[in-house]
């Protein structure tokens, strides 16, 4: 039994639930049997991957759904061997080059060349090009992105690239100018609600509108998250009641508790306790930017106008440092300490003002 997220994933462009106009355009795009390099971007859970798969299916037929996992070996110039797992069908191959860490350039150079240099034997019955899907392009190193540039043009005859990422800010302009960018916005709240009701109906469940609306709000316009939440609710309790609790991810609850701990007391002792909790989160593989964002959003509930903008500047500054520095914990902890001092000062000033 598969999850609802996979079970109800649309399989063709005609079956997409929202951004219908865009789906129409994509269909036109591949109608001639050819398309330029694509750069698909949008927030998580908006349906980027679904659209890519639909596009490929439109192009090659159902053959693209027969997937197999292949292991590729690459050797770096320093003779280090790296192994990368790829997902491939007869017509396309999907790679996450950033798996190779800072050796991602080698993967791009080798992989694209091997795929692109092998021409299909029989062009009359199939397309004359293969598709390479590169995921998480925004996490590629600059070197690897430069390596993509000329390669993209040179092997235009035998392969097409589909790059996908969350934001184009980290993709160098030279690549952006070689691709057609396709923006996939997150679905609106109404669209998510419609899909939730549709899925529940298919499953033979009745979803009370109030509960549906609450799930939608909690999902923050992330369709995948909404579907997962809905399924969790189903496992928890059925029939649904309008006021049943929606399971939140436990790290979000944990983050909220951490933020409350910071606000309730500002002392070196508390800082140590918070540090413990931060380590706990980091060892559970919660990324640093998610931790920062979570704590920041919770802290904001306890701040006043002027303090708010000050803290915003601070969090932006420290989050930026996590990307430049080596260990995330230093910068998160620095942010917490800084916040404590700013907050305490603010409280004391308020206290003084009340006294006189």
């Amino acid at each position, binding site marked *: 039994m598969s999850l609802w997220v996979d079970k109800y994933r649309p399989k063709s462009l005609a079956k997409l639930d929202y951004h219908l106009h865009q789906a129409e355009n994509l269909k*036109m795009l591949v109608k001639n049997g050819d398309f330029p390099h694509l750069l698909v971007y949008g927030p998580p859970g908006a349906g980027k991957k679904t659209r890519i798969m639909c596009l490929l299916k439109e192009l090659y037929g159902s053959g693209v759904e027969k997937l197999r996992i292949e292991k590729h070996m690459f050797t770096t110039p320093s003779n280090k061997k790296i192994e990368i797992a790829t997902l491939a069908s007869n017509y396309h191959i999907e790679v996450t080059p950033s798996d190779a860490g800072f050796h991602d350039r080698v993967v791009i150079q080798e992989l694209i060349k091997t795929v692109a240099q092998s021409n299909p034997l*029989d062009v009359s019955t199939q397309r004359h090009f293969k598709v390479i899907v590169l995921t998480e392009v925004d996490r590629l190193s600059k070197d690897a992105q430069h390596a993509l*540039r*000329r390669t993209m043009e040179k092997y235009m005859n035998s392969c097409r690239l589909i790059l996908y990422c969350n934001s*184009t800010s980290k993709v160098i302009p030279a690549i952006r*100018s070689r691709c057609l960018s396709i923006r996939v916005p997150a679905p609106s709240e109404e669209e998510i609600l419609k899909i939730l009701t549709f899925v529940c109906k298919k499953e033979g469940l009745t979803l009370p509108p109030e509960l549906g609306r609450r799930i939608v709000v909690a999902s923050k316009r992330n369709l995948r998250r909404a579907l997962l939440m809905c399924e969790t609710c189903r496992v928890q309790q059925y029939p649904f009641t309008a006021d049943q609790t929606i399971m939140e991810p436990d790290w979000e609850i944990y983050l909220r508790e951490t933020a409350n701990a910071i606000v309730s007391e500002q002392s070196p002792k508390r800082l140590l306790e918070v540090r413990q909790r931060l380590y706990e989160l980091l060892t559970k593989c919660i990324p640093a*930017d998610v931790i920062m964002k979570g704590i920041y959003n919770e802290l904001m509930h306890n701040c006043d106008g002027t303090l708010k*903008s000050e803290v915003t*500047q601070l969090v*932006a500054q420290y989050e930026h440092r996590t990307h430049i520095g080596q260990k995330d914990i230093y910068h998160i902890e620095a942010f917490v300490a800084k916040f404590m001092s700013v907050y305490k000062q603010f409280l004391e000033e308020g206290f003084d003002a009340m006294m006189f």
Partner: protein
Amino acid sequence: MQAFLKQGGGLGKNPVKPKPKKEEITKNKPWVEKYRPKSVDDVAHQDEVVAVLRKSLTGADLPNLLFYGPPGTGKTSTILALSHELFGPELYKERVLELNASDERGIDVIREKVKKFAQLTANTYRSAGKKCPPYKIIILDEADSMTKAAQEALRRTMEKQTKTTRFCLICNYLSRIIAPITSRCSQFRFKPLSTEDQKKRLMMVCEKEGVKISEDAMDSLVICSEGDLRKSMTFLHTAHRLKGEEGISRNDVLEITGVVPDEIISSLISSCRSNSYEKVQAAVNHIIAEGHAATQVLTQLHDEIVVMPTLTDDKKSIVMEKIAVVDKCLCDGADEYLQLMALSTTIQQQLAS
């Protein structure tokens, strides 16, 4: 024996499968490749470079070249066109070595491959007895991504082999090429294409391909591409594919180019005016959920702020400085949401005070 060999060759040469028709391939070729300039004279808008290169075509000596300039201005196209014109199709393979960032280009490759290629002598005559230039060309594309060590290794090689080899380095940023190399080359700056030249090119393509495009759509296409001909050509091609016979309108162009709609920018600014943190947060959240790129928001916000009449110059400069800081942070890979929030609260403060 001879007959046998001939026959064998004949059997092998008799393919059952029809080869893909050349026509079909060119039809599928992206226009960027299809309309790449075939000769040096064909290169648009780079008159100084073309003038120098034309001299070398008529027999004058060719210096080592260093092309630099923003993407899509025709650097690679120019040198490719030049070497094709110099050597023709039959000699091209043996006289030109093209290396780009996708090839391994560490110090070893410079020492082995480049040096070896550079040391080969070049004949002044073709097989048919016609004259041809007595040198080879090594094209180092995207040279700014070469390591410093590799560039160092190039120095002496460049000088030693001047008799037989010319180097052509292509890069976006001149500052990333070490000084000893730049002083050994004659430098040419490729400037972003002017609106007229770009329009002329695009119109030519439109005519040849039978694209219907309205006047204002063409204008916005040229503006959005910011002097990058490749970008505008890609946009034109895809817009044509999407719309086909209907003709391309201005909205189609805006949709493809990824420009953030004006309403979103103005709603962000008005939320900054409101003095409420929650409204700013909602506006930023909306931008992120819609998937707009933060860098694009930044550019458009910048254009808005510069002309905003209600802000004094002092305040504007504070906002500008923040924009610069945020841009750098985004380049380093910082989180878009937090950076946009930081910028918007700065704008909010400046608008309020």
